[in-house]
């Protein structure tokens, strides 16, 4: 790990100022000054020499109450970016109103990590692609133009949706799938002031610039997450993985259903473990809307969701697996007692 100087600003303005200015288009992950909150992803990548900040800016003592608050009002749910995953997971309003959010947090990582990790940091976690983590492999995300070792390498855990010839690294987060499904927004503080952005716009597909992972600039700080109110008590997150706990999804599905008897009035679907970014399956939602939800409809929705998927040597199984995961999630969500 490269040596860094450590700073602990006490409010947002000071933190933004501490980050200073960066060259245009420089991704936050390559900036001289980088933020840390829970540390569960940042310290990992610093030890691996992947993230190399010269200055590390600790956000944990920021005094803005909104950053650590969980609040519910008519507009919906407001989650401060410094709220720890475990606290959001257990919050009674979250459990009651948005089971899918609660599930996505509960099934992530481990008890200790959920006690540490901030919600904002969780959303910005970087891929766990083995070739990205080990700096001696060529990787376009770390070194643009170096080549992608995963395309023809051991790519069992890699993405089948949203990839490019430059990068097929999976976005491994769970929470993000619930948020994108529910049309969440993120509130971002920057040198120019504060603004909101649809969560769906936060992450960038790799295309030919896999080093650019988000729409954030280096001094931007996620302040809060806003989830609009909605009829989503019938919702869940299904995570399929190699072992029963403490593992990343091979495939997952965040599903929220608004049912009128057996008929779908509204559906929200996101897919995890199979895509390079948080992945909303809108075409599948549209296909289901107004339909009677049964096995056949669920299968049709799954086929629709994966219509554009493309697999490689070791990850092609994620296409049938992802479909089965979505079918299972849809039918299990339908069966929920709410």
């Amino acid at each position, binding site marked *: 790990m490269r040596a860094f100087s450590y700073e602990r600003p006490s409010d947002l303005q000071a933190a933004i100022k501490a980050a200073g200015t960066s060259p245009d288009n420089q991704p936050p992950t390559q900036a001289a000054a980088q933020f840390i909150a829970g540390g569960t992803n940042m310290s990992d990548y610093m030890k691996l020499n992947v993230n190399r900040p010269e200055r590390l800016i600790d956000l944990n003592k920021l005094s803005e109450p909104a950053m650590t608050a969980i609040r519910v009002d008519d507009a919906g749910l407001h989650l401060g970016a410094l709220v720890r995953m475990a606290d959001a997971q257990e919050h009674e309003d979250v459990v009651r109103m948005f089971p899918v959010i609660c599930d996505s947090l509960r099934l992530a990582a481990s008890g200790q990590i959920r006690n540490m990790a901030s919600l904002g940091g969780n959303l910005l976690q970087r891929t766990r692609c083995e070739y990205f983590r080990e*700096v001696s492999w060529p990787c376009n995300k770390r070194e643009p133009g170096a080549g992608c070792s995963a395309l023809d390498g*051991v790519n069992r855990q890699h993405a089948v949706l949203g990839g490019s010839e430059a990068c097929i690294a999976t976005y491994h987060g769970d929470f993000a799938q619930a948020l994108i499904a529910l049309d969440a927004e993120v509130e971002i503080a920057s040198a120019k002031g504060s603004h909101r952005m649809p969560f769906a716009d936060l992450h960038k597909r790799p295309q030919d610039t896999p080093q650019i992972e988000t729409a954030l600039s280096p001094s931007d700080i996620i302040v809060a997450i806003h989830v609009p109110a909605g009829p989503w008590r019938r919702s869940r997150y299904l995570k399929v993985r190699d072992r029963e706990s403490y593992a990343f999804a091979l495939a997952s599905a965040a599903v929220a259903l608004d049912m009128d008897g057996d008929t779908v009035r509204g559906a929200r679907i996101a897919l995890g473990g199979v895509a390079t970014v948080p992945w909303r399956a809108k075409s599948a939602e549209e296909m289901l809307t107004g339909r009677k939800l049964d096995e056949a409809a669920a299968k049709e929705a799954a086929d629709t969701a994966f219509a554009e998927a493309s697999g490689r040597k070791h990850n092609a199984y994620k296409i*049938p697996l992802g479909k*089965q995961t979505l079918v299972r999630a849809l039918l299990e969500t339908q069966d929920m007692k709410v």
Partner: protein
Amino acid sequence: MSDAAPRPNENMGEPFPRIDARLKVTGQAPYPADAPIANLAYGTFAVSSIARGKINAIDIEPAKAVPGVLAVFTHREMAGQLEHPKFGNAAASSIAPLDTTDILHDGQPLALVIAETFEASQEAAQAIRVDYAAEQPSATFDAQGTETVAAKEASEQFEEDVAAGDFEAAFAAAPVTIDQRYSTPTQHHNPIELFSTTAVWDGDGLTVHEPSQNVTGWKVELAHQLRMEPEKVRIVSRYIGGAFGSKGPMTSRTAIVAWAAKKVGRPVRCVVSREQSCMTQTYRAETRHHIRMGADRDGRITAFAHEGWEVTSRPDPYVVGGTSTTGRMYDYGSVLTKVSIVKADRNTPGYMRSPPETPYVYALENAMDEMAVALNMDPVEFRRVNDTQVEPIGKKPFSSRSLMTCYDQAAEAFGWKERNAAVGSMRDGDWLIGMGCATAIYPTNVAPCTVRLRLNADGGLRLQCGSHEIGTGVRTIAAQMASERLGIPMDKIEVEMGDSSLPPAPVSGGSVSTASVCSAVIKGCASIRGKLFSAVVSADGPLKGAEPATLDMKDGAITSSDGRSMPMKEAFVAMKTGVIEDYAEFAPDGATPEAVSKLYGGQSEMKGGEKGEKVKYAFGAEFVEVRINTRTREVRVPRIVGAFAAGRIMNTRTARSQLMGGMIWGISSALHEVTEIDPRAARYVNRDLQDYLVPVNADIRDLQVILVPEVDMDVNPAGVKGLGELGNVGTAAAIASAVYHATGKRIRDLPIRLETLLT
């Protein structure tokens, strides 16, 4: 009584809690990297990122520029400084990194940075730049450029390809046959304790704190590499944070760190990262198997052929070689076996928990289930038909073999008769249920061992033995054996282990420790008893004139069979002594006259298994239930039952824990563990515990261990069969069989992952 402490049956010992339990639950047990050392410097290796080629140039200037760096050593400084390791004894590999510009495997150490702090040493090691002349490496089976050699030609350790009868004729004549191929992947031990070396010089004497399963062997090997007298080297390894074979052979790191510590004039500690561990330590080599089996319609196996292939490094002929066991497993009419090693551009593999049996018995037992299906026979009955008390190769009797008792007890506890044998017939909602079983077997070994006992008149005993507490409970069991023989309570016994300055014990491998240490303790105790008994029968007192053979030691007293007794304290007075000290050397039946002196020289002469007039093995039977989601096909094992017979069980608590851990290792091996190799580069890809999966707590639910009483005094004076490596043999085959029962898919290549089961 809790599940953890089963009630002892018949000849079994009491479930004493571990005597080091308090230290372990309070954080006070001193693992080697915990040793408080003054003025410590920190070492970090920079390793190769190619698997084959040469170093053109290595730039260490950026590393030297890091504040706090004391020294950087490469082949430029170190070539010729150390004797090369001697593969085949205590050394993991003959590869001598930092002696050469040649690169023989991915992750080969290329430079060692010594710095004031851990952080500076890491930063500096990451700053080193190497210019390589890279060559195309051969990664594993099927790669161009590998070399295949018959194991019996390549290694002295592998004596023969066992055979009996005319296999080809019997196979051709068999009415029912199977002919299948199986494989097992590369696996790494991944003990939770990181590998580490702490080297401390005091004048020309060296103390190394390092987790080791073989302190005496390492002392000798390290002295060889450093060109020192063995007596000047001490290895300290009092507590070991999981070993499983990984800390048996010494790797090249130890001597390099020791050399560097001398060079910088400071004690040096090098804790190896999890990621580097898989390249600088040993591993379980990937294996392939071809099995042909023929049987009569009544289920008698008439022909069995087992051919195996295993990967090893270019220079070292490490052989897994499990055909000696599989060839003797059942009453085959004829046997043909062959083992070959395949040399690739890899680090040298080594032994990992039940090294030969885990892969070879997996293949055999998966085939046994396939044959049972082909015969339309119950798999337990199929084993019963082919059970035998005489092995088929040398026609020698088993010293004891309680296999079918294990099957019957485990089947009963599991509820095997509730199983509907039809494939895909059992289901619970969205989960398919499958049930399967397999045989566990492990050779019973014993090796020379020495102990020193020091008994005082108050009944306090100090027991010293250079064995290793790797979690087996050997420290507790040694005390138990002494407690039993000397009639003193457990809390009066102090046991010292894990230090090469103690009387030597064999490598803690091959499941020899309990048998070997207990046999030596029995011998030492017998000598102390003899001294006390001869004193009390000739001195005035209640036991005057008693026949020594009628005496025993119980509850702090010397007792005679006619009811007389004398407190031990008085016996010491009768002997006119304050302390009785005894040093005992145990050598097993059939050992050479040099066996104990070889032990002092760092070599363990193991006896047992297929050698001797009777063949010696421990057996077990394991039954598993798998559940497989009908849609997403993940496999879970909610229930597992194992019954094991392993001679005398010294401590039902530690025995159960060992077997339980083994069974979970078996589940892990079946479903999770694989080190992936990028075939283009011959490099490991999943190098940490994020991607090398082992079970977590939530993976394990209902697990039952049944200890089957067995008496076998042929194996060793303690009547003990080692069981640390028994529990994980066969499990993976039981799971493969259960997966077949649930889905109709026979998976022959491990691990069994959901993608192979998706429809």
